[in-house]
């Protein structure tokens, strides 16, 4: 689960690092990704795993559109306006989904990968294993992209200093839009992977987004590999906390850790600034 949390968080982290905007509609984008993979399955019988590229592409387009249509106008607006804008988008997407598809729960039946592995008395669900692998793979690709390609480096440069980057001839507007598109794609992949074993309904995003925020804050804002570590820590603390102590207290562990880290290292465990 940690790896999936991390992948959701990656998009959030990337967008924040790039333009210091917290995307409150992130959970809703996840919800749309899950609906997208549910509908491709329901209408065309395409397994969520196979429709991953499609979902990722759709969400990337949505991310791009969000930037062009909304975020572009609030880049230099006060913090409060930015929060309201993305929060408003979240409410709009959630209510829109309920109006369009109803409030019912949906599940993908007979997914491609089903069953479980038993190793040394430990049960691991195969869909979860595939999801973890997929999340890790997507993470690797993302990491390679931002550190090894010219566009990726330009993206990082924009994140470090917007003005200096534009002086160097980098089209920052394009970079921002790209950042949103990549953020969307990450959520798209995460949503597709989640759909193989989680139910889909309009309010599904919020709890995941909450954990993603914690993962981002733990790892350090704007730092993508650190977000991976943050997500894994959240997932581990959640399960271990539930096993060792009372399950009702498992989130106390997660949020307690979060508080300690924020107090002790406000920049996050691996944060730079």
């Amino acid at each position, binding site marked *: *689960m940690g790896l999936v949390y991390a992948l959701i968080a990656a998009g959030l982290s990337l967008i924040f690092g790039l333009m210091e905007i917290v995307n409150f509609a992130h959970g809703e984008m996840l919800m749309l990704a899950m609906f997208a993979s549910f509908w491709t399955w329901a209408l065309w019988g395409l397994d969520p795993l196979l429709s991953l590229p499609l979902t990722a592409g759709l969400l990337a387009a949505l991310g791009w559109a969000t930037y062009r249509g909304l975020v572009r106008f609030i880049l230099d607006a006060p913090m409060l306006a930015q929060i309201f804008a993305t929060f408003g988008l979240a409410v709009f997407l959630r209510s829109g989904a*309920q109006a369009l598809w109803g*409030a019912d729960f*949906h599940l993908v039946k007979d997914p491609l990968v089903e069953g479980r592995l*038993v190793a040394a008395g430990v049960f691991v669900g195969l869909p979860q294993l595939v999801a973890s692998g997929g999340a890790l793979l997507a993470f690797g690709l993302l990491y390679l992209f931002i550190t090894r390609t010219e566009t990726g480096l330009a993206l990082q440069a924009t994140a470090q200093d917007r003005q200096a980057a534009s002086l160097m001839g980098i089209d920052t507007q394009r970079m921002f839009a790209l950042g949103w598109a990549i953020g969307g794609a990450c959520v798209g992949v995460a949503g597709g992977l989640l759909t193989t074993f989680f139910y889909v309904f*309009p309010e599904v995003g919020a709890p995941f987004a909450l954990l993603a925020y914690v993962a981002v804050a733990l790892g350090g804002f704007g730092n993508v590999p650190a977000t991976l570590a943050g997500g894994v820590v959240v997932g581990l603390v959640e399960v271990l906390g539930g096993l060792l102590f009372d399950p009702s207290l498992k989130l106390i562990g997660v949020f307690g850790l979060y508080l300690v880290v924020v107090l002790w290292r406000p920049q996050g465990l691996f944060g730079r600034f």
Partner: protein
Amino acid sequence: MTRLWLSVLAIIAVATALIGAPAAQPKEVVIGVLYPLSGNAAQVGIDCVNAVKLGAEIVNARHQLDVPLARGEGLPGLGGARIRVVVVDHQGKPDLGQAEAERLVTQEKVHALFGAYFSGVTQTIAQVAERNGVPHLNAESSSPALTERGLKWFFRTSPHDGHFSQAMFDFMRDLEKRRGMKIKSVAIMHEATQFGSDSAKVQEELARKAGYEVAVKITYRDKATSLDAEVARLKAANADVFLPSSYTNDAILFVRTAKKLDYSPKLLIAQNAGWTDPTFVKEMGADAEGHITRAPFALDMAAKKPMITQVNELFRKTGGRDISDAPARAFTGFMTLADAINRAGSTDPEAIRKALVATNIPPEQLIMPWTGVKFDEKGQNSGVRAILQQVQKGTYVTIYPFELAAADVVYPLPAWKDRK
């Protein structure tokens, strides 16, 4: 500037008064209806609102049904007054439920409150009703504490988790006798809002009384993103009977997780909520096979009660699906309230309350398998009867009490590897 605003406000006030006046001309009874129309239980709330609207429609227009007030138009006791419902969404949040109830009472001037599914929300609404002296009828919240407080203005038509849990333990005892087997331990898992907590408390008491060991009692926060740790605990405890109290989304996640971790108790008896949501069986398919849930309503009893089919037909027209447990209870509760207001002969709150206390609806006028609707001194319907249903071949089948059963119990639950 201020003067300008004041005059604008004055105009608005006059205008609303003018618009309001003709609407009040034909006498009408206003009922404030509170349900979760967004959030995790939105679908259940929407179903319940459809049931309430159907109830109002049946009262306001002429219908050939045996439910109270169906055969006339409007409420004869109030000179044919119509019922108007004001529906609000509390999103499953107790604080919002309270605020909306306040608004309904003070702004919309409702004559009675109705709702609100979640026990935790019903509780805050009941307090508003109590403070303002407005009758509050609840049809589906099952926390026993709601009627144990001795509120003066609160009435509940549905059984509570005390009744339901009693039925579960009666069933276990009868099953032991019937099959000559022995149940030693139970495991309880419940979500942490009022519904789950109170349900688990009753079950723990009953288990102790019945001499069953409570192997493990797990509390979890609702809307969980993962139940791995919880299910791992249940598996380790390995009790004979598993008793969950969960709303729909957690119920779905639980079954998926149980499948993943290969957890299957011999008997699963659920405290309704998630397990009677029609979505649950539809989406879970074979994975829910053999699960037992308590229910106050059963569609398969239509053979014994033809009225169930008639009401279901009408419900399908507005609701778009079969009437299920929660909307059936909402319907019954609403008809009870309408019946009381009619007998009160006025919209005076005290008169309605007195009429509610005097309620006596015979079983023939109900779509429920109950012995009637009659409130005890705490405002709890004493005519309730809880039944247990099991998912067999993809639909709910009544299995207990044995004299009402449509099929025999499947026991034990098949292991995951033996399914399908």
